[in-house]
């Protein structure tokens, strides 16, 4: 737990260095993933056709969600799964605790799950005296560091191997070399014990197949397989929108998700789990619980502008494509979900547009997220709607209102748009309102209730921001013609149809 400001010169220097590392690491990683995605989508061919297919499947499922969710639940029950429903994060945590108590659990091993982050399950378990161990290598590292994940796919993107060696050495009780193989080897041994000791294995759920009541998990390390193979009891947390109708549909998702996330043809493991172990099986959970979570999701249903958020398959491609994310990393967003999807999802999940912040605003004018999204969620448009809602609800400052009017002006000319992309206005504002940023980069709003993060020094952030501005200028001077047209269309439609979101 690190909460104090760095005191000595040495400490400050180290911190500044690590900030530089952070910036470089995020940039390097997102570039690597983005390039991987590009290659993988080109290699697959007909990418647009597949995106459209995936979008149609997701749209269809969400439009008939009551039917498919019901079908899924009935089949899961018939498979022997105990199904629970949670309206809120608190309810999901309470259900988890009930199950843990029922089976007298002392420890839980977990595979990576954004939903469990969203629900703060670890905190609930720990408060109840149950050890919760993250087993994904990156998650394990940041759990030891007591920090939130900074990327959907690579959660410890912001840590270098010296910092990791330091953390793991403490855990090992001996000095470990800052060598990837040695560090991973230690984690393998350490966590193997944890797997064998644990009473409960806890997973998220990438997809839930309605026709057979199965959950599907994608991963590379094998820890999700461990979690669903070794402990006696399994608890799976699932957002209520994770459904796809059939196994047939899984081919589309399995083609798009890994390629969009890391550029892989398929993750090393894709596992379909259909209930607890059968009577004659010798491994797999004896008891399987499924907690289906709403936590604000149903608010997006029936909302013409935000329903498509439920199509998200959590691939992280929009993060890697976003020039702002690439330069500042996930922590600056101050929520479980970062990047463009986080910028839209957070206020949408909370129905609280006041949360909408400057950093999210800064991601609103380029459209790279939509281009990258494998299910074609118009994130960019949503960012614009959110801004507009905020204007309507009078949350915005006068300056921002001017910005909104400015949007139309900007959109009306290609050249002007190019200029706006230099981010002058937004960036300057951010620089001036340094305090706000500091507050967000430091003990993060929303996060500091649950985790502790180390504050970044002001100066290095300011320098970093200037570098960001320069880089973005270099990178994207023009908007894609198609996006510009699409946005233009939307804007006109909205003007014709009047506003009125609620």
């Amino acid at each position, binding site marked *: 737990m690190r909460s104090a400001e760095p005191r000595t010169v040495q400490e400050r220097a180290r911190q500044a260095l690590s900030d530089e590392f952070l910036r470089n690491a995020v940039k390097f990683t997102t570039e690597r993933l983005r390039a991987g995605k590009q290659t993988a989508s080109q290699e697959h061919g007909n990418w647009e056709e597949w995106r459209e297919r995936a979008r149609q499947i997701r749209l269809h499922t969400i439009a008939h969600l*009551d039917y498919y969710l019901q079908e899924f639940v009935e089949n899961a029950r018939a498979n022997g799964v*105990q199904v629970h*429903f949670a309206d809120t994060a608190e309810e999901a945590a309470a259900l988890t605790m009930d199950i843990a108590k029922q089976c007298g659990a002392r420890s839980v091993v977990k595979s990576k799950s954004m939903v469990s982050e969203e629900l703060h399950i670890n905190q609930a378990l720990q408060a109840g005296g149950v050890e919760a161990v993250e087993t994904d290598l990156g998650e394990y590292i940041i759990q030891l560091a007591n920090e939130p994940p900074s990327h959907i796919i690579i959660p410890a993107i912001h840590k270098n191997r010296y910092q990791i060696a330091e953390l793991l050495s403490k855990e090992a009780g001996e000095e470990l070399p800052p060598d990837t193989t040695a560090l991973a080897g230690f984690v393998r041994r350490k966590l193997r014990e944890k797997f064998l000791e644990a009473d409960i294995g806890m997973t998220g759920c990438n997809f839930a197949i309605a026709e057979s009541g199965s959950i599907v998990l994608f991963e590379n*390390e094998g820890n999700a*397989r461990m979690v669903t193979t070794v402990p006696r009891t399994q608890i799976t947390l699932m957002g209520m929108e994770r459904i796809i109708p059939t196994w047939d549909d899984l081919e589309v998702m399995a083609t798009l998700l890994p390629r969009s996330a890391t550029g892989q*043809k398929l993750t*090393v493991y894709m596992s379909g789990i259909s209930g607890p172990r059968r009577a004659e099986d010798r491994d*797999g959970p004896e008891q399987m619980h499924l907690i289906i979570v709403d936590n604000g999701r149903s608010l997006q249903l029936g909302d013409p502008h935000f329903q498509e958020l439920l199509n998200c398959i959590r691939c992280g491609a929009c993060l890697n494509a976003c020039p702002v994310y690439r330069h500042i990393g996930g922590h600056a967003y101050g929520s479980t979900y970062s990047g463009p999807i986080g910028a839209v999802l957070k206020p949408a999940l909370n129905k609280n547009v006041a949360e909408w912040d400057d950093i999210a605003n800064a991601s609103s004018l380029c459209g790279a997220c939509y281009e990258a999204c494998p299910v074609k969620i118009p994130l960019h448009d949503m960012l614009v709607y959110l801004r507009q809602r905020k204007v309507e609800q009078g949350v915005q400052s006068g300056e921002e209102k001017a910005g909104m009017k400015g949007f139309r002006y900007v959109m009306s000319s290609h050249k002007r748009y190019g200029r706006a992309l230099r981010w002058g206005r937004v960036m300057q504002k951010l620089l001036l309102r340094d305090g706000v940023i500091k507050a967000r980069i430091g003990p993060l709003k929303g996060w500091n209730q649950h985790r502790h993060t180390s504050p970044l020094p002001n100066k290095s952030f300011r320098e970093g921001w200037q570098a960001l501005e320069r880089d973005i200028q270099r990178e994207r001077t023009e908007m894609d013609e198609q996006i510009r047209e699409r946005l233009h269309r939307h804007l006109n439609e909205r003007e014709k149809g009047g506003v009125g979101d609620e």
Partner: protein
Amino acid sequence: MNEESRIKQDRFMQRIADRLGRPRLTEKPPHPHKGAPPDWRRFSLDREERIALFSENWQKAGGHVVRVPDLEAAKTYIAQKAKELGAYAIIRQNQPELNALDWQQALPEAEIVVWHSEQQKDLLRYAAGADIGITMAEYGIAYTGSLVCTSSGNQGRSVSLLPAVVMAILPAERIATRMGEVLAHFDGRPRAQFPAGIHFISGPSRSADIENDLTIGVHGPGVVFALIVG
């Protein structure tokens, strides 16, 4: 808990229908966009192409491929590798193809435990400490370079997961071109025949979580062999 859950379920579904602004759906809706695009379904490679593409993908992911003429040759190869690696503890599935081979004679020094319902040993712990796991793969997928293994009383999930090295035997005729061909085996399969675990495996366990540096064998096996028979 169950009754409570039923009531909750009803409320959940009703809320969804309400938000969508219509009564609850009880009829299966037509699903016109089911599965992969139609053109893709026509994509089909011939046998040799499938073997080649599977091998290329499996190797690119960091796995090893060996092609052998028959099961006997697969056994000989595995035995030879086991000796080379100094493997002692071996676990294998209880599958007819494997049972037909004389493992004891091929590996007289090793301890070979067979996974099945009646096995006295603590199978999970044995597998966790095993050097090699041996399994037949049910299907292969050329396009993604994947093996598919399913669970049952005779086929532990642990066998392809816990040992340091996994040797999977894949008869050439089981390799499909596309994933969809394999998924079709599960689409609509009756519950009684549905395995609890279906595992698609596409290479050795890996992670790039430390400085983007690729590490092999993080939790699952670091060395995986696909022995293509035929």
